[in-house]
């Protein structure tokens, strides 16, 4: 199956249209979610309860004719509860044998709901799956189905009984998207859609194979050297010891973004360029994806935390200071 650029644009437009049937507003969040999906990354959604995080993920799974799995993270959740475990079975002859029982992670779209409620050990169970797309159990590597797309949600205010995600885990997420409360018009629309007798239904737009093909198209988008250099400069500027680092970074940042940040910038830029109908990545694309791609990869210093500085402010300062 070979798709053209036009097919890409059509599929994306249809996905957006179907999502917008259920989700009111959040155009940018939907856009970045699609970008992340087509770039082969995972998304961390952060927002207050009841804002539509889970609904967004479930809607996406319904649109894309893909296997969907939801994991509710709790403090007593064990890694095996996610990845799966070996169980003893008995055959016809009465002989016993081990069989790997796949966990909920063996799906195309995973909703890791309230991921920060699980212990770091359980959270780490996702590391291999998110990065390599495989799970190791009993010395055997089990490949996960493709596309594999994790959408984790976390509640920023419920700090009690939560475990902040470790840096390594955070780095696995392609984008971190923050959902803000809807506006008055959006809220009215939500009420209109969800309180009637008929609830909106979505159609399946694309299957796994189509998504994989779209991912290939995204990766084939050309990026000029100047734009690549610019992405590298931005990532380097997040490091306080870098020559590109502005004063704010030097003062408030403890650790900068990893190379995964640069990858996210370029891949996100590619996907965004295609979604915008262009065939190349521009400086604007890099700038646009910089905030969701880097905000969870920058670790603030104590001074930064104490002064209430956000990583978004740091990135915006970097984008302002670093020249193209």
């Amino acid at each position, binding site marked *: 199956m070979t798709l053209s*650029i036009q097919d890409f644009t059509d599929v994306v437009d249809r996905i957006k249209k179907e999502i917008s049937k259920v989700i009111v507003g959040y155009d940018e969040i939907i856009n970045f979610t699609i970008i992340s999906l087509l770039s082969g990354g995972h998304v961390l959604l952060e927002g207050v309860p009841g804002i539509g995080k889970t609904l967004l993920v479930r809607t996406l799974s319904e649109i894309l004719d893909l296997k969907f799995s939801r994991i509710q993270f709790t403090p007593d959740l064990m890694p095996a509860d996610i990845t799966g475990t070996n169980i003893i079975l008995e055959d016809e002859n009465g002989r016993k044998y081990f069989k790997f029982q796949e966990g909920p992670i063996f799906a195309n779209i995973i909703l890791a709901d309230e991921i920060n409620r699980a212990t770091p050990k359980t959270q780490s169970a996702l590391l291999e799956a998110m990065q390599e797309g495989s799970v190791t159990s009993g010395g055997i590597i089990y490949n996960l189905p493709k596309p594999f797309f994790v959408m984790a949600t976390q509640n920023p205010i419920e700090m009690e009984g939560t475990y902040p995600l470790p840096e390594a885990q955070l780095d696995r997420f392609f984008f971190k998207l923050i959902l803000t409360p809807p506006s008055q018009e959006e809220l009215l629309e939500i009420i209109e859609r969800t309180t009637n007798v008929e609830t909106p239904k979505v159609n399946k737009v694309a299957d796994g194979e189509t998504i994989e093909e779209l991912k290939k198209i995204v990766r084939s988008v*050309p990026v000029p050297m100047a734009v690549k250099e610019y992405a590298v400069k931005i990532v380097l500027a997040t490091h306080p010891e870098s020559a590109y680092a502005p004063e704010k970074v030097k003062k408030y940042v403890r650790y900068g973004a990893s190379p995964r940040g640069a990858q996210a910038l370029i891949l996100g830029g590619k996907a965004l360029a295609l979604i915008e109908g262009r065939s*190349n990545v521009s400086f604007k694309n890099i700038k646009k994806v910089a905030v969701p791609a880097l905000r969870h990869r920058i670790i603030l210093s104590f001074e930064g935390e104490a002064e209430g500085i956000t990583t978004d402010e740091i990135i915006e300062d970097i984008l302002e200071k670093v020249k193209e």
Partner: protein
Amino acid sequence: MNFFVLLLPFPIFYLYFIKKKKPNYYQIILQADKHFSLDEELITFWEYKDYDDPYGLMERLRRRLEEKLSHLDLSKAYKFKPSHLLKILSLIFVFLLMLNLINSKDMPKSIAQIWEKKENQERNISRIPEEKLALNDELSKKNIPKEKISQEEYDKEKLKEMEKPKSLEEFLSQYNMDKNTLKKENKKAENQKEEKKEASNKNNNQERGEEGKEQNISNLPSQGAGKSYAYANPYESKDENVSQEEKALNEEGKGSETPSNQERTLQTPTESGKEVDKNAKSGNLPGTEERPDKLGQETQRKVFTGEKIYVPPSQSEELGKNYLFQAPTLEGRRLSQDKSLSYNPSYTKEKAVSSRILPLEFQEILKTYFSQ
């Protein structure tokens, strides 16, 4: 200074700067992308011109680019916009140009002056042979014998003249500053002190003799003390003092009764000028003789009353040399103490006339001379 010289490096520097900073194709395309807001499509197309993609991305890119560029008006897009460097250089250029213009206003004057000087010099040079001839004619008229001497002989003569001690002695002989004179002056002062002491002793004795009389006067300053100023002057015109001093000087050996001693008692000119002693001896003293040509005719020459002044003998005088010396004179004469002896001290103001007229630099020369 001609500032046009400074103008030259600026265009050279600017051309060099442009040449060095000349962008390559990549930079030009990148700038064009930014300038025309092509979203880096031009640079992407240039970089990926040989890129073979299965999805037709480059073809789509080319079409989009063609469409965008077809709407561009390059003549309008590339308006002349001077850079900062060009602006700065232009300002400097204009500034130097103005300096040149200001400077060039005075140039014709200075050129004219130079020409004038040159002409004068040439004129003077042309006159030299004529003047030389004229001088030769004058010399020939005067019949001045010409002697030809060699350079060595001339140098020797010069050296001899310089080595002659006579000139220095002659110079020094004009001033009465030899050691002996000074010594004698000191001795005189000592003698006078002794006299004062004796006088004071005498007074004391007289006071003791007149017991009870005028005892209250004893508290007053002694007469000797009151007269100390007068006694300090070794050239008091009192006859007795003069004779005593002469004796003291004669006792010193060299000062025997010679004509030179008589010469020392000289008459100074009177104020009226009638009694001016114009004999040859008095005229020998430097400063007292009449000037052959008077300087400062407008001021009347000051003539003093004939007052005998004492000129101490000196070693140099024996050699028949005269010294510039003018003894201090007293304005108004103090009454003799012996004639009107009174215990009431009386004071009269004395106005000293400047004694030695000797420039400081000569004094220094003399000091060094005598110290050697």
